[in-house]
């Protein structure tokens, strides 16, 4: 097992109160496998990912409970110093918005070399050659010239490739991709996804792929975990869930999948709003929007029910 997350809780203190952004999340990823993490905006996907890297927003965010086992080592117990040796080298991440992910005042080469230096040591030479390699790996044309470009001179798709190159520079084992194509033009989304899949296969990466789009899950992932209001409500193999979603939220989310090819950036729409994470309802968090809701749903949170070998859903209406 490459990554095993157990009962992770991460809270954010805001002026509206404590936001339970990650509220008891468990999942695991094997080497070479892609797990999709799906859910509406604000359901806690990004915070889950940042918790793995121990990079929750300071000073508001804190992991309050749970384990993050990377090759059996618990990252939650590590010191900041030890974490620094893990970030980039063993876990890396691609952020959502390429427009803001790169530092505008340094050229691209500088920012890739920096990542390589962390991995290979201060005195390593030939770093610029390697940076060129890194760009070639993500299929950037004319990499040598690109190294000297500044972010504002590149297109969004190109920048996201550079971010990919940075994330992969130190050859990590686990890659987190947080909605890597949400901010890209539709025409280049597909290219980028194919690139990621290709690189993943070649490097044998484990990948946590975050998206709010079930259409993308179908293309990218082996297994999927559906997140709602800080918790995972259903998880299982992609094929199985696509064939027969068991949790009403999963079903609703899938029903609202827009055609990927023809869509604008719009959230899949289910009537109503997800609950505010600092004032969660007592029972099932989906109850206010669920069409199958009954009395018990409002009173008590449903336990996860195993359906198949690796398929589970947390809903009172699901029978094993």
């Amino acid at each position, binding site marked *: 097992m490459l990554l095993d997350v157990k009962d992770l809780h991460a809270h954010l203190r805001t002026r509206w109160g404590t936001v339970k952004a990650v509220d008891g999340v468990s999942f695991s990823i094997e080497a070479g496998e892609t797990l999709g993490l799906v859910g509406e905006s604000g359901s806690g996907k990004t915070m889950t990912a940042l918790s793995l890297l121990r990079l929750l927003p300071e000073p508001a965010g804190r992991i309050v409970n749970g384990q993050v086992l990377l090759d059996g080592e618990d990252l939650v117990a590590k010191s900041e110093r030890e974490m620094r040796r893990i*970030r980039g080298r063993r876990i890396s991440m691609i952020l959502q918005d390429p427009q803001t992910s790169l530092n505008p*005042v340094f050229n691209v080469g500088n920012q890739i070399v920096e990542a390589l230096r962390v991995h290979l040591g201060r005195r390593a030479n030939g770093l610029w050659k390697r940076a060129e390699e890194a760009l070639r790996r993500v299929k950037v044309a004319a990499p040598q010239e690109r190294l000297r470009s500044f972010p504002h001179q590149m297109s969004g798709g190109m920048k996201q490739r550079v971010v990919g190159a940075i994330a992969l520079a130190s050859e990590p084992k686990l890659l987190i991709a947080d909605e890597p194509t949400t901010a890209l033009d539709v025409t280049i989304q597909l290219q980028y996804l194919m690139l990621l899949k290709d690189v993943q296969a070649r490097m044998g990466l484990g990948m946590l792929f975050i998206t709010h789009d079930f259409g993308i899950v179908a293309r990218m992932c082996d297994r999927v975990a559906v997140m709602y209001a800080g918790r995972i409500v259903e998880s299982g193999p992609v094929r199985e869930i696509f064939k027969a979603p068991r949790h009403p939220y999963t079903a609703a989310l899938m029903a609202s999948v827009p055609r990927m090819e023809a869509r604008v950036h719009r959230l899949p729409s289910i009537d109503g709003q997800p609950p505010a994470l600092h004032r969660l309802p007592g029972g099932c968090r989906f109850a206010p929007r669920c069409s199958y809701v009954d009395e018990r749903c409002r009173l008590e949170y449903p336990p996860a029910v195993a359906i198949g070998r690796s398929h589970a859903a947390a809903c009172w209406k699901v029978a094993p």
Partner: protein
Amino acid sequence: MQRFILRRFFQSLVVLLVVAVVVFALARVTGNAADLLLPEDAGREDREHLLKALGLDRPMHEQLARFLKGALSGDLGMSIRYRKPAVEVFFERLPNTLTLVPIALLSAIVISIPLGLLAAVYRGTIIDRVSGAIAVLGIATPSFWLGIVLIYIFSIQLGWLPSARMGGPAHYILPTITLAAFLVAGMMRLVRSSVLEVLNSEFVKLARIKGLSQTVVIWKHCLRNALIPVVTLFGVFFALLVTGAIVTETVFAWPGVGRLTYEAVIFRDYPLLQAVILLKAMIVLGVNLAVDILYAYLDPRVRYS
């Protein structure tokens, strides 16, 4: 880039022209230009003579042309009080200001950037609170009064530091504090808020994801970006500094161009005042131009467009 600077340069010239015309017009709008521009004690014959020499009997547009031509050749009239060309008086005093202002500016920068940075990195802690309190107090304290209070405490009560005029290094301490305090409050808060913004940016997150240390993240990735808004507002700070120098030099009887401005006002020496203003305007515009170039250097988005 060159076009950008060239455009700025022409804009500065326009501003300068506007200031010159305003100064020219204000002397004439009340219809008593002669009173403003000539010594009161001038005899009647002198007066007639000077009126002619200044061309005050000519039509307005001719006077303006003459004024601008004079200004271009460095002739801005005779100071009434000093009975010397006003430009000459200004340049006699300028070196004294040029020793004080850069020291104050440097002190302000050296104090406010680290303090603002610390306040942002340790936000919510005691460091942040203290620097916040200093800023709030600093903004509310009129600098002329701060100068007087400092003189009362350190010169009169404690007798540690000289209270007025130029001299050895000790003479610089109180004026520098007074002048720098004027800037520190505003600069510190600006640095703080821009560092905070950068700390929350995605590229800082990515830098952390790479595994960079806190030191590299802050000093390499944050500082340069955080300084961009500070540099952008440098023009505003410099304007504040010029204003502050007038007050500070007045309080400390510092014989620079700030004090000279004050003298021109209280002695109603209009020719001197107009010279001081046009020359200071030139300096301010020159500094702003230099800042634009520095800005372009810091921010490649400007440099390459």
